[in-house]
Structures are given as C-alpha cells and as structure tokens.
C-alpha cells in the first residue's frame, strides 16, 4: 500500500511487522504505535520462537495491533479476546499466547473474563492499552475512565471512579503485574521481555494518549502533551514519593 521509496537499511521493528499494512489507522499523536515498538523489541530481544507465538486482540483501536504483527494473529469479537486466547492455549499448550487489546475491551465489556483468567492463572500474557476511553466508537466512558472526566456518554463529567487495573488483577492472583505509560518505552520493553519469559497469568497495563477522543473533550492537548505529562508526573513522584500509591498522579491531572 505504501508508495515509500525503499531505504537502504530497514527499521529493525519491521522484522515482526506486516509492512504492507503500514500506515496504521491510528491518529497523529496516538500512543498505541509507541507501545508496539516496545513490544516488537521485546519479542526480538527475548529470542522466543515466533513460529510458536500467537497474538489475540479484541475490537478497538488497540485491537488493531494483532493485524499489524507478523505473527499468527487473531482479531476476535469485542471483549472476548481472553476467552479466544484461553481456547487457543488449551488446545495448543506449546504456543506462547499474547493478548493485546484495549481497556474497554479487556476490562469493561470483557472485565469478567479478565478476572477469571487471572483467578485460574491461565498461561497468557495480557497487554492492556489503557487510553481511558472506548475510543474507536467515538469516546464513550469505560470502567477505566477517570472520575469527573467528560466523554460522549458522560456530558456532565463521569460520576464514577475508575478501576485500578494492576490492583484488580493482583487481587485476582496474577503472577506478574505491571503498569507503565507510553512515555516509558525502554522500561516497557524490559518489562515485556521479562513477562514473555514467565509462565502463568501476566498482566501489563500501558497508559497511552488518545488525543482524538479522550483528551480533546477534556482540554488535555495533543498526544505530545499527554506524553510530557507522563514524564513530568513521574518526576513529581520521584520528588514526592507519597503520590506514588494507586492513581494519585493520574487523578490529580484529571480533576478539573
């Protein structure tokens, strides 16, 4: 599809991407592509057998990731990525199964599956791209939409607090739980590499910008503004460690 002149050397991530599907559908400033870079380097760095690796996504902007990876990939129905992945793993125990999907998909419509896969300790790596909204369908509030924020379904601001995913999944018994933002590319790569080598239910949440459908309604600027905010709130937390617990940093930013 792309009419780009070929470069003399290739971007190393293209080894695990379907080049013919680039450019991606993602908006300018969307952070999903940035998480894919970390994932691609983690996949290549750990040296796991890519022929025995499958990636499963649900529906959503984040759910498109499976279609861009040059792996066996599965684009399933909305919310049901984990049940499909569970079946795939049980029928083919030798496969490394990775679920890569959105917050609305994995934790709102598919929240029950997440809870029970963690409780059963299914051997899956789940990467949840948390842009705090149901983005692809126009910005409806999800279970991860922070309290007080505007969305198409909460025109007076959301009255409900959001769930904290790492705490939820940890309470359900997952063996590996982590949270990074799209700003933390190197840390995310290392965490993904570590999780790929582990067995059991592993969960990584990545907070990413969605300038088009979340930030625009909440006067939060573009994708770069969100990335700068992730960077600055980390520096804040380093200086003031008492803010580190739970969603402290995120809450502070979203409260208007």
């Amino acid at each position, binding site marked *: 599809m792309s009419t780009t002149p070929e470069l003399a*050397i290739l971007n190393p991530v293209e080894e695990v991407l379907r080049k013919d599907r680039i450019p991606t559908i993602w908006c300018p*400033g969307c952070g999903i592509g940035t998480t894919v870079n970390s994932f691609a380097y983690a996949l290549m760095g750990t040296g796991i057998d890519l022929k025995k690796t499958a990636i499963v996504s649900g529906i959503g902007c984040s759910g498109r990731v499976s279609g861009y990876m040059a792996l066996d990939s599965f684009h399933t129905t909305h919310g049901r990525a984990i049940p499909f992945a569970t079946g795939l793993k049980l029928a083919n125990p030798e496969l490394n199964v990775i679920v890569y999907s959105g917050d609305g998909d994995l934790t709102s419509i598919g929240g029950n599956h997440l809870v029970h896969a963690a409780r059963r300790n299914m051997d899956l790596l789940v990467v949840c791209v948390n842009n705090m909204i149901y983005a692809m369908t126009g910005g409806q509030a999800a279970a991860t939409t922070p309290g007080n924020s505007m969305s198409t379904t909460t025109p007076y601001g959301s009255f409900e607090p959001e769930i904290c995913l790492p705490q939820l999944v940890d309470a359900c018994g997952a063996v590996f739980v982590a949270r990074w933002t799209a700003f933390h590319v190197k840390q995310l790569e290392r965490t993904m590499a570590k999780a790929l080598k582990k067995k059991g239910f592993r969960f990584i949440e990545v907070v990413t910008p969605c300038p088009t459908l979340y930030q625009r309604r909440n006067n939060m600027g573009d994708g770069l503004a969100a990335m700068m905010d992730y960077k600055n709130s980390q520096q804040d937390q380093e200086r003031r460690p008492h803010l580190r617990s739970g969603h402290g940093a995120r809450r502070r930013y979203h409260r208007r």
Partner: protein
Amino acid sequence: MPKGSVAITAERCKGCGFCVEFCPTHVLELSSAFNAKGYHPPHMITAEKCSGCNLCGMYCPDFAIFGYKFPDLKGGKVGPA
C-alpha cells in the same frame, strides 16, 4: 564526527513530534516541508550530535524513523543500540 544517524520514511510520518521532543541530544526538528498526507516530517538540524541511540525509533508510533550507529574501528556494529 557523529556516532550515528537517523533514517526517515517521510511518507509514514503523521507529525506527532514525539521524536523531536524526546531525542536526548535534540537533533531533530519538524521541517516546513509537507509529505503527501500534509504532515510535516522531521529532519536533522544538528546531525553531528546524533548518537544513533534509536530513542526516536522507540517513540515513533508510525515506524517512520529509526536511529542506527555507524560502524566504528573498534569493532562496533551497524544497527540500533
């Protein structure tokens, strides 16, 4: 003598500015030229400062840029750090 350089596929760029902002040595700037989709792709303004660390490549959501190190006489390799 720079330690590395970047390769840019201008037609993939959507002008988000992540690479410009997060380059540790501030090598890049969004150019005033347009690509076919109407975005401003980055270009190098201080090429001699590039270390080829590939942080721009890690941040680029559209796989449009990456850094690579020049082979050096001490037996280094070409490719991202």
